[in-house]
Structures are given as structure tokens and as C-alpha cells.
């Protein structure tokens, strides 16, 4: 592990040279969004400077170049998650749009009044509200599998909630509020036994661990570019080809058609059927560059390094009097959510910011999780490839100092 090249990685991220409040930036808000390496910034700048035109359109040189770079990125995404075909890679705005796409296409066709959708109690709002909207429109029911006090899914309860009416299971691969990595292999096996489609929200998992959608055998997998060191405004929906082919289009427009007359329209094949309109070309290219960067480091190495950071931070945090960690799953990604007795997370966030330390304070778009733990909010430090033990020391010292200054 000592060979993980964190010093070199840090040099690749220009923003890490920023000073915040005259202190070196300690960026620990990676579960919200990750910073971008120079290679990603350069890839987009190079596209705009040398290769930019619309894709899938003209016969002119620039359009051909832009299209090659755009399609090349799709191939990189396919390899990154080991999809069977690049036709199974749909570019969307982000995880949120991917989930809404499933709700509005797969959901509207396959989920009828009285049918059930099963999620977990630790979902992000983006894996709750699209299903509530669908249920309101079609009379289906949203079932929620409970979690325990460690923040782990109670699999036996989850299994009990599966019924003949369950048409879709949608769960986070990794929780953004708690860090919990869900037992997705077990969940998918249960779903297969009942012939239920499975959607994994991979927004937190995909940037931090190897993902193999064929080994997982999930029907759908969604993740965002901006949490994966790529630009915001781009994300990926993976879907098994047979599933995607059976689904109606999401939005209508250019690129998603093969023939349009006023009498009838024929749709394009995959993946274009789900990509109406000019896409976010530069962001797709940036995503491809981010995937190259991560692949060179190795997702296994990244997961191991971040696990080491989490272990270190957890040990240090546990030693602080009055600090309580929210989310203590056995299988956990590098997210440390915590509360401190009588000190509101927003005060923690503002005071740490004055030391140059960026953390998240709030409900993390997971209000039901906050309700379950009976807290209005938590403070959350989340780690990434460029973080170090020295930065965790700055965080911990800051927490100790603010407890002292609050004197509660």
C-alpha cells in the first residue's frame, strides 16, 4: 500500500494548490463531488481547441474527429464497468437522470397499479423521489427495506418485502450518507430468484471500487461523472441490451430517430434511442479521460488505499470524546459521517472551513436516514485518491479544537 503514488496524484490536481483561509486546502467533500485532474481539464480544452464540432452529423473533418472522441469515451466506459457492449452505455446528465429515465421508460411500461418497487431505507433522494412520482402516476407501491443501527441493510427484512408484485429493486451500491456498501451480490441473487429487475445506484461506488456489471448481473447500473473526477453534467446509465431494447424511448428529438415522417417515426438503435439531442460532448470526453486516469491507477489499488484512509480516520475519530460516528457498517466505503454532542454540523463545517478543511454538513439528500438516526444533520468527511493521513490529522485536530472552543 505504501506504493500508492499519492504525492504524484496530488500534483495532478491543480486545485489542491489553492489556499483556503490562508491554509492549504484539505478537500474532504468527495462524496459530494470530486476535484478534476489536469488530464481531464486538458482533454476538454484540447477538444474545444482542436477537435470540436457536433457529433454524428456532418461529413466534415471536425465532426468526424469529435465523433471519434465521443465514441471512444463510450468504449472506455464500457471497459471500465465491463459491460458486454458499448450499446449498453447510455450517456445521461448524471445518476439522477439515469434513475428518472428508468422510472419513465422501464417503469411506465412494466410497473402497473398494485405492483411494487423495493428500495432501502438508506437511499439518496434521487433513488426515492423518481419512484414516488411513478407510484403517484400509476398507482404502484413503494416498499422500503429497513436498516439497523450500524447503518446496514437488514437482508432478512429485505427478502420478506419481496413479493410476486415486486417489479423492480433499486438500491444504492454504496450509501452517500453512511458509507455502507450494500450486499449487492446477495440482493441480485434474491431478485433473480424472483425474476425481478435490479437497478444499482452506483454514484458513490463506481469512483471508489472495481465495478463489473456482468459479474454483478444487475439489469441497470447508474453513476455520475462529477464524483468520478470527471465534469458535472455527464453520467452513465448501463442497461442490459435486452432490457434497453424492450424499453420505449425517454425523450424525443434528434439523434434518437432513424426516420421521421408526420405519420410515424422509427427510432434509432441502442444507445442512441435514449440520447435525444446534442449531447454534452466535452463532458463525455472528460469522462473518458477520467476513466483513463483511474484505470492507470487501478481500481483495486484505489479501493485499498481509501480503505486505509478510512481505517485511520475512524480510529482517530473514535478517540474523540463526544464524537459519534453515524454509519458503522462492516463493509464500508471511505465516508466518515459523524455528530458531536451539542455542536451542530453547520458550525463544525464553518469552523473547519476556517482551517482550510472542506467537509459536508447537512442531510446529504438522505432525510429519511437522518430521521432514522434522529439527527437533523451530520458532518461528513469523505475521502478520495488524493487525500493523505496528514490531511486526516488536520481534520482531527480541527475537531478537537472546535470542541474546546465551543465548551459545551
Amino acid at each position, binding site marked *: 500500500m505504501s506504493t500508492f503514488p499519492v504525492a504524484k496524484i496530488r500534483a495532478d490536481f491543480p486545485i489542491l494548490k489553492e489556499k483556503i483561509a490562508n491554509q492549504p486546502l484539505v478537500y474532504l467533500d468527495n462524496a459530494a463531488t470530486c476535484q478534476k485532474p489536469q488530464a481531464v481539464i486538458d482533454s476538454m480544452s484540447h477538444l474545444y481547441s482542436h477537435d470540436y464540432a457536433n457529433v454524428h452529423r456532418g461529413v466534415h473533418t471536425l465532426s468526424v474527429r469529435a465523433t471519434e472522441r465521443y465514441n471512444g469515451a463510450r468504449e472506455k466506459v464500457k471497459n471500465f464497468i465491463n459491460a458486454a457492449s458499448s450499446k449498453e452505455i447510455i450517456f445521461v446528465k448524471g445518476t439522477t437522470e439515469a434513475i428518472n429515465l428508468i422510472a419513465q421508460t422501464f417503469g411506465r411500461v412494466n410497473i402497473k397499479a398494485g405492483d411494487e418497487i423495493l428500495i432501502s431505507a438508506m437511499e439518496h433522494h434521487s433513488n426515492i423521489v423518481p419512484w414516488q412520482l411513478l407510484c403517484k402516476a400509476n398507482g404502484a407501491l413503494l416498499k422500503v427495506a429497513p436498516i439497523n443501527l450500524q447503518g446496514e441493510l437488514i437482508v432478512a427484512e429485505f427478502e420478506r418485502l419481496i413479493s410476486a408484485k415486486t417489479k423492480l429493486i433499486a438500491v444504492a451500491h454504496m450509501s452517500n450518507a453512511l458509507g455502507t456498501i450494500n450486499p449487492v451480490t446477495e440482493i441480485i441473487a434474491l431478485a433473480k430468484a424472483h425474476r425481478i429487475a435490479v437497478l444499482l445506484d452506483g454514484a458513490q461506488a463506481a469512483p471508489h471500487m472495481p465495478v463489473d456489471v456482468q459479474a454483478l448481473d444487475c439489469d441497470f447500473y447508474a453513476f455520475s461523472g462529477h464524483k468520478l473526477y470527471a465534469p458535472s453534467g455527464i453520467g452513465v446509465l448501463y442497461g442490459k441490451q435486452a432490457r434497453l431494447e424492450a424499453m420505449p424511448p425517454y425523450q424525443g428529438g434528434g439523434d434518437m430517430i432513424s426516420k421521421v415522417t408526420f405519420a410515424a417515426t422509427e427510432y434509432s438503435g441502442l444507445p442512441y434511442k435514449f440520447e435525444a439531442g446534442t449531447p454534452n460532448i466535452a463532458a463525455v470526453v472528460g469522462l473518458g479521460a477520467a476513466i483513463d486516469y483511474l484505470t492507470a491507477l487501478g481500481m483495486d489499488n484505489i479501493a485499498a488505499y481509501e480503505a486505509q484512509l478510512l481505517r485511520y480516520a475512524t480510529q482517530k475519530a473514535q478517540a474523540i470524546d463526544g464524537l459519534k460516528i453515524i454509519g458503522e457498517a462492516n463493509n464500508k466505503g471511505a465516508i466518515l459521517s459523524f455528530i458531536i454532542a451539542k455542536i451542530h454540523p*453547520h*458550525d463544525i463545517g464553518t469552523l473547519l472551513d*476556517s482551517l482550510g478543511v472542506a467537509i459536508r454538513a*447537512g442531510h446529504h439528500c438522505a432525510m429519511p436516514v437522518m430521521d432514522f438516526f434522529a439527527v*437533523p*444533520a451530520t458532518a461528513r468527511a469523505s475521502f478520495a485518491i488524493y487525500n493523505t493521513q496528514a490531511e486526516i490529522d488536520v481534520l482531527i485536530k480541527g475537531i478537537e479544537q472546535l470542541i474546546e*472552543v*465551543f465548551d459545551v
Partner: protein
Amino acid sequence: MFDAIRDLYQEVIFDHNRNPRNFRVLANPDRTVEGFNPLCGDRLTLFLKLHNNTIIDASFQGSGCAISTASVSLMTEVIKGKTANEAEQLFQQFHAMTTSKEADSDLAAIGKLAVLAGVREYPARVKCATLAWHTLDAALKNKRQSISTE
């Protein structure tokens, strides 16, 4: 410690956070309004007792950050004995102080509330300081049972 941010977190703020004033339920209040900041989960209930359009007692319950707790604690102190119009004027002054960079001249008029002036340098925290006052505004106008900053 935290020298860079003492303009916001002054000792008075910590004091009111530790020992909030008028932190109780008011018996037979004339106005009860709940204020909520969905961004951070701050939630407070403001109770007012009025007589001839004058606030004769004020108290609150709820939980929030140090800024919002200190702000509502200080507010309940200063509005007692004020008429509704005077309280509304204070709200306008407080709002100007926390959102405008050019309100320094009014700091004298606003008395001990001036301790919260530092919040104007922290846009993410302005709503923590103003939640109490928006709740008061709703209570005095007697329009709603609950208000939200969003």
C-alpha cells in the same frame, strides 16, 4: 484558536448557544409560529404574548446551529417591550445588516444584535441568522403557522 473566524463566532454567540435565553414554552401564547430551514434542519418554534400591539413576552423552543440559536435567543431579549412596528423595523435593520455590505452605519441602532453582523461575510450562514426574524415577521403578520427559508 479559530482567529480567522472570530468575526462570526464571537464569545457572545458561544454564550447564547450554551445558555439560550427565553428557551421555554410560553403558556397561552397569542402567536405560535414554527420556522424551518430545510437546508440544515434548523427548526424553532417562536411564542409571542401581545398586549395592545406590544410584545410583552417572547420565548422559543427548537434546535439549530450556534448562529441560529444565538440569533433567536438575542431576538427574544430585544423584542420584549417593543411594539409590532418597532419589531418589524428591527427586522428590516437586521436583514440589512446581515445581507448588505454597506450597513455599518446602522450598527449602533441595532444594539447587541450587532454581534451577528459578521454573518454577512458567510453567505452560506445568513439564513441561520435570519430564520428567527423571518419567523417573527410571520408571527407578527399572523399569516402562517410555519415558515421555511426555502
